[in-house]
Every structure is written in structure tokens, then in C-alpha cells.
């Protein structure tokens, strides 16, 4: 079951206008930069981007906004911390101008919504967000003496993930804190595309150390190790 694509351009070629695309990575760590660049080049429009942030530590996502490819963002930490830097960021400007629709979730709810989608769970009750703006429009329910919010699964059309090592069948091993959103996004995506730094033949991974079973991954593409400068503001 060889899932290898010749390059990032081929791997993202069929993403249509209006698609939802989950993009993994916590700021810099575990972010599939080459796939984001390829999506910017490919030019699909009216996208819904599902990712932690919309700019900080990830200038390539900014580029999608600058290109006006993004209709909606679903995220948990979209902006620069610094208000002054934020004022100059394409995402914050687009939100202020009403040109970019945005939904923000608590980080745990965000990743659990993706996890639920991959796991065939339609919805779940979480205590996070009770008594805050997050509860608006949501069912609130008591279990025991504690209140919980009903949150729905979130299933992206595509997921971009990153792995330190992977085999041609799509089994992936992550490295240190670069694992972050990758496993749950891989499982959630209808079509999951993995950017893999070290591509090996089946048998080249320790089966006990596969963090993302190949069944979740539809396309694999070998990429060079990106160079990040781990810093945000």
C-alpha cells in the first residue's frame, strides 16, 4: 500500500475551493510548512482553515490570508500576543474588517472536537467554557453537580500533518513536542496528507513507536527538514 506522492504540489493538487483544511503544529513545532506553501501556490479559495493559530510562528498561514484564500478560520490562539504586532497582522486586520469569519475554541475543546470526528463520536460534554462566551448557543447540562457544554465533532476535508519519520504505508513517528495536534488531525481528516522528514520502507519504524497508524494517512510526501526559529510575540 504505497501512499507516496512525488511532491507537495501533487499532494495538494485536488483541494477544491471551499474545502476545510486542518493544519497541525503548535506555533513552530510539528507544522507542515511545505504543504502550506504548496496550498498558497495552488490557490484554492474560500477555504476553512482549522489550526491552532493564524499567523504567530507561522508566516505561511499569513500568506494564505494575504492571498484571500481563507473564508473562515477555526482556531484557539489566532493572534499575536502583542496588540501592536497584531494590529499589523493580516489575520487580525481581516477579522477587524469583517473579511474573515472566525470561530475560537478553548485548546482542549478544539483538539477534542477533532479527536471525536476521527473516533466516530458525534459529540461530547466538556466542563471547559461553562459561564463564558464559549457557552453561547450551546447546550449546557449537569452531570453530577457539575455543568458541562455539548460540543460537536469537527471533521475536516483535508488534514496536513508533519512527522519526523514515516514509512511508505503512512505509519508516522513524531519527535518530542512536534507531536502536538498531528495524531488527532490525521485521524480527523477525510484525506490526510503527511509531510515526512525521513521516509523509510515498511519495517523501518518500531511498531511500538508509531504515533499515527497508517490507516489514517492517505498521502505521504517526503520533505526536507524545515528550519524554524522558535519564537513568537
Amino acid at each position, binding site marked *: 500500500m504505497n501512499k507516496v506522492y512525488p511532491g507537495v504540489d501533487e499532494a495538494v493538487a485536488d483541494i477544491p475551493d471551499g474545502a476545510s483544511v486542518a493544519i497541525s503544529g*503548535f*506555533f*513552530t*513545532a*510539528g507544522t507542515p510548512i511545505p504543504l502550506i506553501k504548496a496550498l498558497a501556490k495552488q490557490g484554492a479559495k474560500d477555504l476553512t482553515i482549522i489550526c491552532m493559530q493564524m499567523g*504567530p*510562528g507561522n508566516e505561511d498561514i499569513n500568506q494564505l490570508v494575504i492571498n484571500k484564500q481563507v473564508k473562515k478560520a477555526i482556531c*484557539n*490562539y*489566532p*493572534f499575536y*500576543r502583542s*496588540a501592536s504586532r*497584531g494590529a499589523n497582522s493580516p489575520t*487580525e486586520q481581516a*477579522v*477587524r474588517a469583517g473579511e474573515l469569519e*472566525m470561530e*475560537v*475554541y*478553548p*485548546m*482542549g*475543546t478544539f*483538539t*477534542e472536537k*477533532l*479527536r471525536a470526528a476521527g473516533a466516530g463520536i458525534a459529540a461530547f460534554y*466538556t*466542563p*471547559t*467554557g*461553562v*459561564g*463564558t*462566551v*464559549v457557552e*453561547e448557543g450551546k447546550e449546557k447540562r449537569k452531570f453530577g453537580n457539575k455543568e458541562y457544554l455539548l460540543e460537536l465533532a469537527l471533521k475536516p476535508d483535508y488534514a496536513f500533518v508533519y512527522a*519526523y519519520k514515516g514509512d511508505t504505508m503512512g505509519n508516522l513517528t*513524531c*519527535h*518530542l*513536542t*512536534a*507531536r*502536538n*495536534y*498531528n*495524531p*488527532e488531525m490525521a485521524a480527523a481528516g477525510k484525506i490526510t496528507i503527511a509531510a515526512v522528514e525521513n521516509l523509510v520502507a515498511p519495517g523501518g519504524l518500531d511498531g511500538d513507536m508509531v*504515533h499515527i497508524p497508517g490507516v489514517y494517512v492517505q498521502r505521504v510526501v517526503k520533505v526536507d527538514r524545515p*528550519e*524554524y526559529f*522558535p*519564537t*513568537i510575540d
Partner: protein
Amino acid sequence: MAETKKKFKGLSRELMALRVANELEDGTYVNLGIGIPTLVSDWIEGRDIILQAELGMLNTGPLASQSEVEQDLINASCQPVTELPGSCYFSENESFAMIRGGYMDVAVLGALQVSEKGDLAGWQNPGRGLPEDIGNIGGSMDLAVGARKVIIAMMHITNDGEYKIVKQCSYPLTAQGVVDLIVTDLAVIEVTPKGLLLREVASGLTAEDVQSVTEPKLIISPDLTEIQF
């Protein structure tokens, strides 16, 4: 609201972090938020406290020196960090399962406002002018709800001299009734069912000084002391 309070000279950020560190017990798992809370890590080296990084790491070590930087090994503030013996890694989802599941003994968080009931507002400053349901929620709501004990480390008043310890939060909430202890540059205040209990004041300050920059009425502890280190 824009009435300006007297500015008192209190603890440095570093000493606030030390005071928080002294509050942590050995044998606990602790998550440190962005900002002043991050500095707590400088004061617990060698202690039996395990730090969680919300992006998926337990037993996070000190910040990496220039030569130690590994781009795949960062903390929640996107700073390069190091491993310790017994460090381990997991997904973001597992990390928040852990947080919501009640496995963090303590979360140390920053705040914009804390109310006398322990309500916390920390993720959105309306002054930035964004819609009220949009901002950097990040991991704050899960940590505030999930951690067994929530310690707030923040400046006592804003740069503009406004109350941060308030009767009722006017900023969007992070969570209701979750704060246990507030450590500021001026005081250590415990949130109790009866109200805010002033336990310690910064050197040279009186309870009245602290009350003058605190909106709700403080209960003065009979054991009131200078901030202990």
C-alpha cells in the same frame, strides 16, 4: 473606571515567581502559563515538581541555551526547552485530557481581572477592539477548569492604574469561581468562601495600602505578615 490609583513599589516579577514557587508542594504536577508564571520554572530547579507543557510534555526542563536549541522541543510559549530524566511526550489531545481530567495539581496563570468570587478573566482585553467572542483563548479555559488549584500571578493594578482585583469581572471570563490564590507584586490574597483574605503584603506596605488598590473589601488575616520567601 479610569480613576488612577497610587502606584506602590512592590516585588519584581522574579520575586513574584519565587513567592509562587514557594507555594508549590513537592510531589506535584504543575502547569505554568505564559508571562510571569513562566518565570516560576527558574525557582524550582532540583525540586520534586514536575512541569507540564500543554503542547504535550511532562517534566519540562529549563530553557535551552543557544547550543541546545532543538526546534522540535519547545514549551507553550514557543521557547526552546530541554529534557530532564523522565521527560515524556504525548499529543495535545492527551495533554488536555490530562488537564481536564484533574491531573494537574496546580496551574499558575496570568490574569487581566480576578473577582472576589474567584472568577478569572484572562484571555481577552476588550481594549484591543476585537469581537467579544474572539481572542487567544488557548489553553487557559481548560487549565482554569481542570487544575485542582489555580494560582494567579499578576501585577496588582494595570499600567493605567485600574483595578485588576475587582468585585465583578468586566472582561470576558476564562472561568467562574476557580481562583484559589492571587500573588501580585503587592500582596498574597487567598480566595475564600467569605471573600478575599489578605495574607501577606509586600515589604513596606500596609493592609490599607493594598486595600486602596483593590476594589472588593479585603478580609485582613489575623496572621498578616510581610510576603514570605
